[in-house]
């Protein structure tokens, strides 16, 4: 088995790691770099819990060949907060009780961040579309949709 060096930016900081052949980005982030925020839910690209941003766009890290992120910028939930200052999405997820078991939450947050970065005031339909590749088994989605709308400063059932 050969090891391939890969350098990329992780949440704005340089990361360098040797990856095994055919190792996926999720495994490299978690075990190689130690960023445990993206989660393994299927390894098939069907649950979304491993969602990260690559060059600002959501990708499924379990389906991303690790060495293809050479020179690119990867963002994870671990980098959402700025120091102690939580991201508006994180605050809104807390406020709206948008997590139960919490396992899908990092993927949901990254899918939502990709949306809000492009579309600061999305419609409800745009929010639904943005998380349509992410599965939540606990909440029934509504609190998550509400939280993302709330993070964009829009009224929700509770605030509006």
């Amino acid at each position, binding site marked *: *088995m*050969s090891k*391939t060096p890969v350098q990329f930016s992780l949440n704005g900081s340089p990361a360098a790691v040797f990856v095994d*052949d*055919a190792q*996926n980005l999720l495994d490299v982030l978690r075990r190689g770099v130690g960023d445990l925020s993206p989660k393994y839910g299927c*390894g*098939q*690209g069907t649950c*979304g819990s491993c*969602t990260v941003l*690559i060059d600002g*766009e*959501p*990708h*499924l890290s*379990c*389906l*991303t*060949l690790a*060495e*293809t992120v050479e020179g690119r910028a990867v963002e994870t939930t671990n980098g959402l907060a700025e120091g102690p200052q939580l991201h508006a999405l994180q605050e809104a997820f807390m406020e709206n009780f948008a997590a139960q078991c919490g396992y899908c939450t990092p993927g949901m947050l990254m*899918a939502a961040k*990709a*949306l809000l970065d492009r579309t600061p005031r999305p419609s409800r339909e745009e929010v*639904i*579309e*943005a*998380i*349509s*590749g*992410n599965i939540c088994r606990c909440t029934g989605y509504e609190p998550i949709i509400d939280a993302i709308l709330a993070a964009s400063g829009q009224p929700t059932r509770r605030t509006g």
Partner: protein
Amino acid sequence: MVTITTVETLQDAAANKGQGTAFLGGGTLLMRGVNYGDQNVSRIVRLRQPESLAGVSSEGERVRLGACATMATILKSADVAFLHAVARAVGGPAIRNMATVGGNVFAPHPYGDFAVALLALDAKLRMSDGSELELERLLAARETETRLIESVSAMRPAGDDFRFLKVTRVKPRGASVLSIAAWLPRRAGRISGARVAFGAMAPTPVRTPAVEAALEGVSLDQNGIDRALQSVANDLNPPDDSLASGWYRKEVAPVHLKRLLLGQGTR
């Protein structure tokens, strides 16, 4: 165990193909297999710069899509606005940032909805050896195809001549119960030279010749399409899978074709 070979050109990639070798497009299908220990893949060949084959451009009455263009690429291109609804029907946003046009052509049942649209739009493939190939011919023998796709050219339909729908159980995004793409060129309100393709109704996307024939010269109204709807069953023998049985697919295919042709939408 799987090894990775990184090459500069598609021709290099094709030259490296062989037993146990797979070409990495978007990775949405290949990497899944790798993760699950697919013993048929022992080597992955990938392009160092797949962006070089990701262009979208106009060529007269046709458009050309690079094989490595992703669904997200399609969605960003105003040149191919008629394909936006199709690209949006593939996966969620993360999948669309990864899944490629070329990969979709090889996607197994029930995937490959983009290829359904390409099939209806008379797609021709430019292969890694420089040859041209009709999509329909490749689909008929894709299990044994060793060449790689470089780009796809498809007709640019006029007005609302192109229709697409995808029926999923899960909303807004899910795998196909079936998908239908119809290119319906009209002369004086009458259809001429229709191409109608179905997805998830056979092992690969397929055209429905009897439906196409029945649409010839008719107008897009209930009476006009009646014979086409009755022909659907003759063209299709869909498989059972976990989403729906072949019986169900066959039973509702005319219903959805009717809704597509009459612009009634899906639920």
